[in-house]
């Protein structure tokens, strides 16, 4: 293709050409970064929870008058829920993955070390692995005689008596790998308090923390055999078949009301709702960015259409002369397409540098990771396509200019 004549024409419209290049560069840079941000959000929203998400229900109730024996109340509630038709399994838990409010503990591998090794979330409650559907990949599950009443444990902690405290724990494989890379975690000790270590007896495939804001620490999870009494912070978790969820939830609530009619239901939802709620900010942000990208591409396309139409109108006579001298319609069409391709390429090259600079800025100010190289071609291809599509109309109009224009005076 004849690039030289195009370049010499562009030299006569230096400023407009540069403005177009600048516009393409800015669009390219912003689109690269925005697509990357969307990718980050989608990746976060896809975070595994480690539980049977489509089979779980969560219920929280608040008792108006505190029951005399919260442990007995808890046992009664669980037994009642087990009777509900369609219920496969019931557990009590202090928290749920992506449930936001969480209980966390500072882990030490040696009770004497001054700084914690890391902070992990701690799940308390009975029958958790079964109900949540977490997969045990090594060791054993927690047994009924591992469990200690939480009040007794608190008292034991106060007196420094090791006997009343739980002695074993389950951890996730992510946590195991982080604490003891390349070694067998079973039988090792974790210290949440200086008094007594918890022996790792089982390793879970995956179980996300309630406050999984950082994808790197989202699986730092332990399950500790503490028996909790009924309280408004405890959740009842019910496993059922996906299609039974709605009516099991209704029946379970009715059953709980029957135990104590004065209690107030504060939470009743499926795990799908839990996930939707936890990631709603990410979804909103991704949606907003998509709209901004769409608006940007539209504006850039409009700009290209405008400038190209203007140039075509300005060069009508020249086009007529070329046509009269033997240029085909295809030649004219290709001329404008090539011109656009050249401008877009320059813009994209500049845009890549800019995209990198914007990413550096975001990295230092907003704790974002580095922009992977894969996003650069995405922006480039998008802009080449947009450019070619936008220029097609004006270029076709140019190709339609009849040779006779050359002989007419303006």
């Amino acid at each position, binding site marked *: 293709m004849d690039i030289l004549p195009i370049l010499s024409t562009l030299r006569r419209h230096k*400023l*407009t050409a540069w*403005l*177009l290049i*600048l*516009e393409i560069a*800015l*669009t390219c*840079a*912003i689109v690269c*970064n*925005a697509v990357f*941000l969307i990718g980050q959000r989608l990746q976060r929203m896809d975070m595994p929870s480690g539980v049977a998400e489509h089979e779980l229900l969560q219920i929280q109730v*608040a008792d*108006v*008058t505190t029951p005399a024996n919260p442990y007995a109340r808890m046992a009664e509630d669980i037994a009642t829920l087990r009777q509900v038709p369609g219920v496969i399994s019931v557990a009590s838990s202090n928290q749920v993955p992506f449930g936001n409010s969480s209980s966390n503990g*500072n882990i*030490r591998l040696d009770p004497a070390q*001054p*700084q*914690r090794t890391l902070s992990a979330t701690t799940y308390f409650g009975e029958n958790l692995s079964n109900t949540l559907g977490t997969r045990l990949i090594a060791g054993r599950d927690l047994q009924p005689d591992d469990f200690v009443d939480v009040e007794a444990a*608190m008292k034991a*902690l*106060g007196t420094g008596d090791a006997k009343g405290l739980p002695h074993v724990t389950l951890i996730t494989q992510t946590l195991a790998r982080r604490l003891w890379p390349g070694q067998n975690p079973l039988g090792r000790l974790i210290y949440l*308090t*200086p008094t007594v270590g918890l022996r790792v007896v089982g390793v879970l495939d995956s179980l996300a923390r309630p406050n999984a804001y950082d994808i790197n620490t989202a699986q730092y999870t332990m399950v500790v055999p503490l028996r909790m009494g009924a309280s*408004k912070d405890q959740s009842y978790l019910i496993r059922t078949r996906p299609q039974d969820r709605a009516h099991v939830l209704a029946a379970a609530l009715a059953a709980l009301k029957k135990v104590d009619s*004065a209690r*107030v239901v*504060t939470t009743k939802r499926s795990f799908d709702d839990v996930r939707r709620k936890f990631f*709603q*900010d990410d*979804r*909103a*942000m991704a*949606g*907003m*960015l998509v*709209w*901004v990208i769409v*608006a*940007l591409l*539209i*504006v*850039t396309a*409009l*700009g290209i*259409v*405008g*400038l190209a*139409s*203007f*140039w075509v*109108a*300005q060069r009508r006579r020249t086009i007529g002369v070329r046509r009269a001298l033997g240029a085909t319609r295809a030649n004219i069409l290709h001329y404008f397409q090539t011109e656009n391709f050249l401008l877009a390429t320059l813009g994209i090259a500049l845009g890549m540098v800019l995209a990198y600079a914007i990413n550096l800025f*975001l990295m230092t100010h*907003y*704790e*974002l990771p580095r922009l992977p190289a894969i996003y650069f071609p995405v922006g480039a291809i998008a802009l080449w396509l947009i450019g070619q599509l936008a220029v097609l109309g004006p270029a076709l109009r140019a190709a339609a200019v009849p040779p006779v224009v050359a002989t007419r005076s303006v």
Partner: protein
Amino acid sequence: MFAYYLGLALRSLRRSPGLTALMMLAIGFGVAGSMTTYAVFRGVSGDPIPWKSAQLFVPQIDAWGPVQMSGPGARSGTNEPPDALTYADAMALIHDHRGSRQSAIYAVGPTVLPTGTGHSPIPVFGFAVYDEFFPLVDVPFRYGSGWSADDDTQGAPVVVISDTLNQQVFGGANSVGRSLDLDGRDYRVIGVMKPWNPQPMFFDVVDTGGFSSDGPALFLPLQRAIASGMENVGAVNCPKGTQPGAGYAGLQQSACVWLAYMVELDDAAAVQRYRQYLDDYARSQQTIGRFGWPPNNRLRDLRGFLEYQHVVPDDTRVSLLVALGLLLVCLVNTAGLLLAKFLRRSGEIGVRRALGASRRAIHAQYLTEAAVIGVGGGALGLLLTGIGVFGVNRMLPPRLADLAQIDPSLLALTLLVAVLAAVLAGVYPAFRAARVLPAWQLKTH
């Protein structure tokens, strides 16, 4: 003259409707994108109490020592004290009373038991505070008022309730003096607030994270809440490896931080004195052996503290940047199109110059034309902003979406930005157009 330029501009625009529409569309999109995001941003980061935020301060006292870092500072490795206060420190500050007004604050979650049959219990969310809290943050009252200092010292069973709770329990009547059952205990209603839900909930961001969809349902004296064992639903953070003992007694004796604190200081001298006071206090604690480290206090003003707590989500800031990028692209776009359009008319400019128009007149004419495009783009931008804010309200989580609303000042800003953007984009083209030499231009024709 302006009317003449306006006429010229309209005539010129009518000659190339496609290009004009393109320019207006570009400006409209840019303005709408950035204004929609700005609406969200301003909603989230707005100053909840602009008339007073410069006088409100949040003291932080390092009760944990240098190895126990907490809060946002822990990540960056700076030696920031905890976000909240221990009971001992909060009470010392209350007792010394060095600011003009002050209050310790923590979140409570009692259950309201309405009288009469057929009413179910209402779990509510409120705060335990001191009497000075109400004038401190200018709580608006519909009926009654806050309580007195005596009520605080005696731990009187009084309560200030929200408009919503007053509707639910008393049907919206003036309920001052009537009694309200909280967790099975009787409290006397002493004040009813007007609807009040400041966003962010600036007086206790540590407990609320800054946002809640409903405003606080009630306030009651802090010592009363402790004495009656009302459930503390706020954040309790303890130094590593320690656990508070059972109940409030345990919390009160622990080194755990669970009380927010706010103090009003009227001028720079008062702020200086208060800083000095905090340091003296920490030094006295060091002397008696409670703190094994030199004073490490902070006294941020309200806006500084909200920023420190990252109350505005990073997400919103990033999307604001993206939207500003959109506006920039639109500006560049419009500048390019205007330039192309204006330079095409060098013949016309030549004639006008030859007939005696000054450069200034050419500038004025072309800036008028740019402004007309700006107004058109702005009108389109208004429409698109409306659609955008509506869309955002459907997309964002409700707690944030409520904040993003169209208001007159946002509309005015949209229009202003559009016109400014267009005029700015027209400055160089107008300048170039005016530089055309009349003689040369006429000769070529």
